[in-house]
Structure formats: C-alpha cells, structure tokens
C-alpha cells in the first residue's frame, strides 16, 4: 500500500472519529467511545505498518500558492517520524483504553474521548509533517487540544486557569517559532523540511552564521514553550489539573516531546551553529537541575512526575545538543514509555484513593494494589536509570553523548541531576510502599479494574524490554550502534544506586526523618518548595505590565480618542449656540451688518 495513503488513514481517522463523536453522538457515550477507540486502533496498526514498511521518500502536494510562495502539505517517512509516530500512536491507544476505566462515571465522557481523538490527529499530523508550516499548524493544534483537555473539568476554576496559562505560555513560545519560520520562508523562499536540511542547497548555505543562530534560537523558543524548558516551564505542573490519563498522554509522553522531536527533526540546522548549541545546553542542564530540586520537596504525586518529565526532557535536549542524535531519540521514546507507565499508575492510585498526596496514598495502603505498585516500582527504577531497565540504556546513551561531545562540566552536572532523579523517584516509591504509619489491617484496598491494569501491565513489560530497541532504532535511523565499555557506564550506575540509597536513608528506613536532606537547609527548602519563585516573578513582572499597559491604553481610548471626539462635538455645538445668538432679532442690526459687509466687499472689489 502506498505509504501516503496509509499515512492519511493513520492521521485522519482520529479526526473523523472526533468530528462524528462531537457532532452526532454527544449523548450516546458508548458509540462515541467505540468510535474513538476504533480510530486509535486503526492509527496504531497503520503506524506500525508504516514502521515495518521502513523509510521511503517524502510525498507532498502544493497546498497554498500566493505569488512566488509555494507551501506544501505531505508526509516524511524517515526513521525518526516512523519510530516516534508508532510510539505516539501506541501510547495514545493505550491511554484511550485506560480512560474507559478512569472516566467511567464522568458525565462528559464523549467530549473527553472526542478531544483525545482530536489530539491524536494533531500529534500524528505533526510527527509526519514534511513542511515547516504544516508542522507549525499541527503544533498549535496540539496546543489547542491540550488547552481543552487540561480545562476538561471547566467548572473547576483552577482547571480553566491552568488551561489558560498553558495555552498562553505555549503561545508565547509559538510566537518565537512562528517568527523563526516566517524568517526562514522569507530568506529561503520555501518551508519544505528535506530541502531546508539538504547539506548543499539547504538553509545553512543560504544564510550567515549569525542569522542561522538567530533563526535556530527562535525555533528553540518554540521548543522551550512546548517542552516546558526553563523560562516557559511553569505551565506543566499546573497542567496536572487535567484528568490523569491526559497528563499521562500529553504532558509526559507525547505532546511535551513534540519540542524535542522538532529539535531532532531540524538537528542538522542546530548542529551548524555553535552558539545555539551552547545556549541549549546551558538552558537544558539548568532546567534539569532546577526541576529535580523542586521534585525533591514536592508532595503531590502528579506534580513530582511533572517536574521529573521537565527534567528528562532537559536531558533529551542536552543529548541532542551535544550531538547524540540516537541518544536523544532513544531517551525520547523510552522515557515516553516509562513516564506514561508512572502516570498511569499514579492515575490508578488517584482513581482509587481520590487524593494526589503520596504520603496519604501510602498510609491508606497504596502498596496493597499489587499490579499498580509493581508498575510504579519498575517505572521508578527505570526513571532512576537502574541497569536492566529501559531507563538505564537511554540515560547511559545521553551521558555518553555528553562526554563524547567534550562537554565535561555539563556531563558532571548531568550526573548530579541523575543522582537527584534517582533520589526523588525512590523518595516517591518509599512514601507509597513504606508509609510512616502502619497500615490498618482491614483496609479493603483492591486493585483497579482490568481495563486500567491492562495498559499498566503492557507498559511495565515494555519498560523492562525497552533496552532491546536500541539496535533496530539505530538501524532505522541509519546511525551506527555505539558500544560503551563497562567502565564508562560505571559512574551513571553508581550515581543511580547512591540516589536510591540516600532516598532509602531519608524515607525508607523505619527511623527515617522523612524530610529529605534538603530539609536541613531551610532557605533552600523554601526556595525549592516555592518553585524558585518563577511563577511569582512572572505574575509580578509580565502580568502586571500587561495589565498596566491595558489600563493606560484604555484611559487613552476613553479620554483621548473617544473623549477628544466628544469634546470636538461639544465645541462645535457651543459655537453653534453662539452663532444662533447672532440672530438677535433686531432688524436694524441685520441691516447694519448687511451694509458693513457690502461696504467691505465694495472696498475689496474697488481696490483690485
């Protein structure tokens, strides 16, 4: 089958499902659910068929022609898009299955599933996009889907505020991306990605080093917005207001990864500019450290996972920036798998205990939920980077690429971040499985329904066997498989184990203080728990500035422009009043003024 038609099927079935669900079966929940799941299944099968079909040349048609400008719409079937497309389709389908259980008793079920369908369409459209502009379009549609999904329970004020914040911050990032793309189109006259990336005739040859850095940094601004890197990351923790499957799907595995994917897609461009790489590395490593420190003091289960996602995304970006294309992509895929697993387990707990607080879950017998706890532990271990699991392989690759790239300081800081990751992950695990108070004996805690557990189990298996995909992925990406000596792997493993030990020391032990080593330094503790005051700074600076400008211009409108016009009208009417008073009713005055004017006119006529 021609890959283009298959791609169309993969991408547009979720859209069709979304449209039919929204328009026709708002009331019929079951049909809507079935439609969306069917759409999800078709796209999974299609994506894997495409993956098995292997890379083929891109196909596109001219979508918009204005004057000399030709913007195309089509699909790229290289290794990157096929592999990530398959992962996205798979996880979307799993979350849809999971949501059946999770959203079972929610009245607006149809709208939820329809929005998932919309998201599926947007994300897959973005992954296979061939044209920068087409990528931007689906990029913003993904943002839209996240807006609706975060604000799904719109009756909760905090949810709608979070949705608005998410949309605005991603929007700020998108502005940078849009400006970058517009400049690229203006300079190169085209937006066709393969043509841009072409070594001989691509963008790099057309433009000087300085402008290329500017363009690339503008695009990175978009990535920062979408993948929640340092300046624009504050929306991701708030996005946890949305239902947990949404957090699992969008805000950990797929949507936030779109930024990293775009980075990987335009990798040659980034590599061509030194300064850009340095900037990305610094931002990435700072984000990783910052998010890890905040996660250490966070008590909300989903918030911890959110901050860990920010950290892991920073790792991927660092790897890509350091030149490790394979490392970045591998970590991207594997992280999607085990982070989705962690979120689904968290969802299962929250679904059962109706609370996000880790300690509460632990105290009320979280560990009695066999499969969920197993998933949590394995997911946590993989996140920490313990050897046999998927996380270890991808983290190893990331650290290796950093050291190969020669960025030893960044490598060292990354190691420290890995240590912190392991620490807060197992802090979370110990909170849940080793609660400070002994469990009540008769707490009737039973594990979630099979429809929730199914995806968890599948992902657990995937996390365990994750490491195996290294070979085939390298093959499909046409990259050679890197071989690391045991010695080079040692520092990563040691850090992970140290992290686990310190976590056990602070939280696992029966006599543990359960306040974490950071508790010792109250200043740092407050800094981290207030999320480095970033939100407050934004609120104080930007929000107030916008409001101020709005008030000032509102005053300008009311007094100057509008008021000015009214003043002018009053003045005219006032002069009208006075001219009317000229009409004094006094006949002799009339005649006198007539005579005077005629005399003056006579004088004027006479003098010429």
């Amino acid at each position, binding site marked *: 089958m021609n890959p283009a038609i298959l791609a169309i099927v993969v991408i547009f079935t979720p859209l069709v499902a979304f449209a039919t669900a929204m328009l026709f079966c708002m009331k019929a929940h079951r049909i809507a659910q079935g439609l969306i799941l069917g759409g999800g299944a078709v796209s999974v099968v299609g994506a894997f068929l495409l993956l098995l079909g292997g890379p083929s040349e891109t196909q596109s048609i001219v979508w918009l022609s204005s004057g000399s400008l030709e913007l195309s719409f089509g699909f790229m079937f290289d290794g990157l898009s096929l592999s990530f497309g398959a992962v996205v389709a798979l996880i979307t389908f799993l979350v849809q299955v999971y949501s059946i259980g999770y959203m079972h008793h929610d009245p607006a079920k149809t709208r939820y599933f329809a929005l998932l369908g919309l998201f599926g369409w947007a994300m897959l459209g973005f992954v296979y996009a061939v044209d920068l502009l087409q990528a931007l379009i689906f990029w913003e549609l993904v943002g839209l889907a996240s807006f609706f999904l975060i604000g799904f329970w719109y009756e909760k004020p905090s949810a709608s505020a979070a949705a608005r914040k998410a949309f605005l911050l991603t929007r700020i990032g998108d502005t940078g991306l849009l400006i970058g793309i517009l400049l690229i189109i203006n300079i190169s006259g085209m937006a066709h990605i393969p043509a841009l990336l072409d070594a001989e005739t691509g963008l790099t040859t057309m433009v000087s080093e300085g402008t290329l850095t500017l363009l690339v940094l503008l695009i990175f601004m978009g990535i920062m917005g979408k993948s929640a890197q340092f300046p624009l990351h504050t929306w991701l923790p708030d996005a946890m207001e949305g239902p947990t499957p949404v957090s699992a799907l969008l805000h950990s595995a797929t949507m936030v990864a779109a930024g990293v994917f775009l980075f990987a897609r335009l990798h040659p461009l980034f590599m061509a500019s030194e300064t850009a790489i340095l900037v990305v590395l610094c931002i990435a490593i700072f984000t990783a450290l910052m998010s890890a420190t905040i996660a250490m003091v966070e008590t909300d289960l989903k918030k911890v996972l959110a901050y860990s996602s920010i950290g892991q995304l920073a790792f991927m970006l660092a790897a890509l920036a350091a030149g490790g294309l394979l490392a970045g992509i591998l970590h991207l895929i594997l992280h999607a798998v085990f982070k989705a697993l962690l979120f689904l387990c968290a969802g299962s707990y929250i679904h059962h205990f109706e609370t996000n607080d880790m300690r509460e879950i632990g105290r009320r017998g979280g560990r009695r939920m066999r499969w969920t706890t197993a998933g949590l532990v394995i997911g946590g271990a993989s996140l920490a980077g313990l050897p046999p699991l998927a996380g270890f392989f991808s983290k190893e690759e990331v650290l290796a690429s950093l050291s190969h790239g020669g960025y030893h300081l960044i490598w060292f800081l990354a190691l420290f971040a890995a240590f912190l990751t392991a620490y807060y992950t197992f802090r979370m695990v110990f909170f849940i499985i080793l609660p400070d108070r002994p469990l009540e004996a008769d707490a009737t805690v039973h594990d979630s329904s099979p429809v929730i557990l199914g995806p968890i189990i599948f992902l657990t298996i995937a996390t365990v066997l994750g490491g195996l995909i290294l070979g085939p992925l390298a093959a499909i990406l046409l990259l050679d498989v890197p071989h690391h000596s045991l010695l080079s792997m040692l520092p990563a493993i040691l850090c992970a184990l140290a992290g686990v030990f310190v976590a056990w020391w602070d939280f696992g032990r029966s006599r543990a203080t359960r306040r974490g080593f950071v508790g010792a330094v109250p200043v740092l503790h407050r800094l981290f728990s207030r999320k480095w005051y970033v939100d407050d700074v934004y609120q104080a600076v930007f929000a107030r500035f916008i409001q101020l400008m709005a008030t000032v211009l509102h005053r300008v409108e009311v007094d100057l422009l509008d008021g000015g016009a009214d003043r002018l009208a009053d003045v005219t009417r006032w002069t009208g009043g006075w001219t009317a008073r000229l009409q004094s009713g006094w006949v002799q005055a009339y005649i*006198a003024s007539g005579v005077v004017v005629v*005399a003056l006119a*006579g004088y004027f006529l*006479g003098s010429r």
Partner: protein
Amino acid sequence: MIATLVIAAFMILAMAGAIYAALVPHTLHCIIGLGLTLFGVAGIYLYLGSPFVAAMQILIYIGGISVAMVFALMLSVSLAKKMKHSEIKVILSSIAAILFLAVMARLIMTTEFPLREEPAGAAAWGVEQIGHGFLTTYSPLFIGLAICLSVAIIAAVLVARREADKS
C-alpha cells in the same frame, strides 16, 4: 452762472433735509425734513432738464407720500411723544454709513464715465417722448407698474381692514 447757483442751492437743500430727517429726534420734524429733501430733488430734476418728472415728483412724493406718512403717524402715536433717541445707535449707524459713503465716493471719483458730447436737445425731453416710450418700447414696464400699484392698494386694504371676527 445763476443756473449753477440755483442748482447748488437745490443740492444743499436736499442734502441738509436728508441729514436733518435722519438725525432729528422728533418724528414730525423728520417728515418735514423729508419734504424739504423731496423739494430739493424736484429742483435737481428740473435742472436735469425734465420738468414733467419734477412736477410728478412734487405731486406724488410731497403731495401723496409725505401726507400719507403724517396720517399714519397721527393714527398710530401721539404726535408730540418724542421717542428716546439712543446715542450709541446713531454713532454706530453713522460710522457704517460713512464707511459705505467713503467706499462709493472713492469709486465714483476714480471712474470716468462715457460722457456724451453734448447734452440732448430740449425736444428730446418733451412729455410725448415719455408717453411714446411708455406705450411702445417700455410697455411691459407700464403694465407692470399698473399691476404693481393695484396689488399694493388691494393688499393694503385687505391687510389693514378691521377684522370681521375676533378669531
């Protein structure tokens, strides 16, 4: 020589009468002033060679119009009552009038009119020329004047009659 003296006298009489009529506070004196002016103007017409028009002037103007004015005055207000004559109005109006006078005088002085070689002969001034003119070339004028006078009379009568009813 005497003729110029006589015409000068008539001119002065006319101008003095006019100014007197304009400025005297008492109403009846104003009409008397008008009478003098009209008499002066009649003299000027005589000098300008048309005795018939001078006669008409005296007959209609002094005989008819001035007397009508006196009757109107008697009907409307007691003769003796002297209207308060406001000074400012006189000053302002005379300024306007003098302005007009100056402008026109300068113009009259500076333009040279296409004078005829010698004034027309007496024959051209006879009454039958006027009659001939009225009936042939200027017939619409004659008819129009007749209509105009009759309309004025009818209008005056209809307007000024006692109202039949107190509506």
